[in-house]
């Protein structure tokens, strides 16, 4: 009996521990399952978020694999007409359009001026670069006068032409040149309007009062400081003056 008792006592202890252990392990397993589910859901949301965030990128990849640039429709269109005749027409049209386009290109020497970097490039009729260097172009200053008048000092852009070439030009100061210096504006042909030597040895008129000319302020070459004209160094100006002819094209951008 005692032995039986002892055995019972000996047996009950591991059973309760086993129960405790199994309830512990059940809790752990439940916890682990929740953990798996929650982490799977979080990963799922994260992947979906990333997919939608980079949707355009994935769509581009999908398009690469799902679409192919077939020419079926183009072939069908061409086949529906007379292809041989169409080929001849196309060739003629390409040649004509090319010819029409070439007619716009300069037939004689020309100059290209970049108003952003304040550089120029002088080319001959075959588009061979002859000279390049610094210029000064419009400062983009807006001068506001008291009588509601204002001037914007910018160099015009596009294709212009040399309209007049002058040696030893004289500058006839416009109204803004006086207003800018706080002086009274004189009459139209007042002697104070005429300045000698300011424009250098040569000038090439581009119309609307704009010119390519020399400068006394050589240290400012390469900077946007002018009232809209294009200033050049003496040697560059001489070369440009001798190379460009009347009607030569001046490209400004």
């Amino acid at each position, binding site marked *: 009996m005692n032995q039986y008792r002892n055995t019972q006592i000996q047996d009950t202890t591991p059973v309760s521990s086993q129960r405790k252990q199994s309830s512990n392990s059940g809790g752990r397993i439940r*916890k682990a399952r929740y953990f798996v589910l929650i982490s799977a859901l979080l990963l799922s949301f994260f992947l979906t978020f990333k*997919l939608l965030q980079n949707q*355009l990128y994935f769509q581009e*990849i999908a398009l690469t694999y799902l679409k192919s640039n077939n020419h079926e429709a183009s072939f069908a269109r061409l086949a529906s007409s007379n*292809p041989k005749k169409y080929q001849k027409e196309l060739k003629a049209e390409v040649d004509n359009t090319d010819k029409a386009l070439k007619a716009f290109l300069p037939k004689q020497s020309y100059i*290209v001026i*970049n108003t952003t970097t304040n550089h120029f490039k002088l080319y001959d009729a075959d588009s061979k670069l002859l000279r390049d260097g610094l210029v000064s172009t419009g*400062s983009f200053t807006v001068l506001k006068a008291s009588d509601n008048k204002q001037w914007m000092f910018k160099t015009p852009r596009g294709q212009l032409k040399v309209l007049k070439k002058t040696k030893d030009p004289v500058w006839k100061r416009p109204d803004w040149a006086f207003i800018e210096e706080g002086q009274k504006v004189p009459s139209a042909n007042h002697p104070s309007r005429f300045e000698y030597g300011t424009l250098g040895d040569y000038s090439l008129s581009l119309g609307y009062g704009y010119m390519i000319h020399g400068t006394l302020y050589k240290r400012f070459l390469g900077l946007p400081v002018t009232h809209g004209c294009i200033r050049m160094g003496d040697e560059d100006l001489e070369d440009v003056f001798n190379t460009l002819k009347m009607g030569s094209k001046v490209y400004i951008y």
Partner: protein
Amino acid sequence: MSQSVSNNTGSSEEKKQNFIVWFLLWFIRRPGMQFLFLLTAILLPAVALVFTVILPAITFEPIPVNEQRIHASDTLKTKTAEIPREQVPFYIDLLNKEQKLSFLQNRLELARQDSIYLVLNLQDSLLDIEIKGLPVQRCKLLSVDASNRLKVAPHEDIQAWLGKPFTLKKEFATIPKVPMLIVDAPKDTNEAAKLPKKPMEPEKTAVFFTLMFDRNLVLLVEQAEAVVPEEEMLVAGYRQVNDSLFKRSFLEKVIQPMPSDLPVFIKVKMNEGDARSIYRSIPHAGVAKLLINPLNEIK
């Protein structure tokens, strides 16, 4: 007391570590649980991938074309007659000639106008500034990242899309379009003498700009040079504006994954000087034009 607290913390950390080790061993031994984990993790993104990427991509027209053209193209497709294989090079030659003609006609049209325009040549990685048919500046593109849509769109659609010059609708940049300085005229010579005579120094600001054209074309131009630390904020601001312009909400992305007006992006990198010259030289929105050289010779 403090000792007992530290002991408690130590034991709880130990318990956590034990649990993690136990969990990993438990998870490794249960393939069913692993399968469930993968299934749960992948199901939603897979559904999103199918419904917001793959299915819309199947029906999507890579290049935005008008309704009329789509129908015309469908009609042609239905009429497709088998072209003998030996005649294919002849037809391809015709298509190349058509492309060339269309490009030349557009250049001619732009040359007839007085405006400065851009010509983008993706094949040779060049962006030219042209005036009256003459490329006055040739800018080498150091990197080009064009949308795949241009490569996979049917030739007829690409041809129609490139069929006329693109017109600039909107632009924004890290630099001002016109570096304008407003000066009030001095009242007298004394006041004039006091005005600063020193000219503006050449600009060195980072150049990044976005040109939004019609037909959903967006050209992003970036300088290739690294941005100096002082200008990082400026560039970050630009990128923020850029992102906000093209950003779509998650709901929009789910409801309408690929709308017909989805922008066609072309991102290019070039020298800072070239980028500045381009941005300053092109006319304002509504007037500025861009012409794209045929993307590739058809083979």
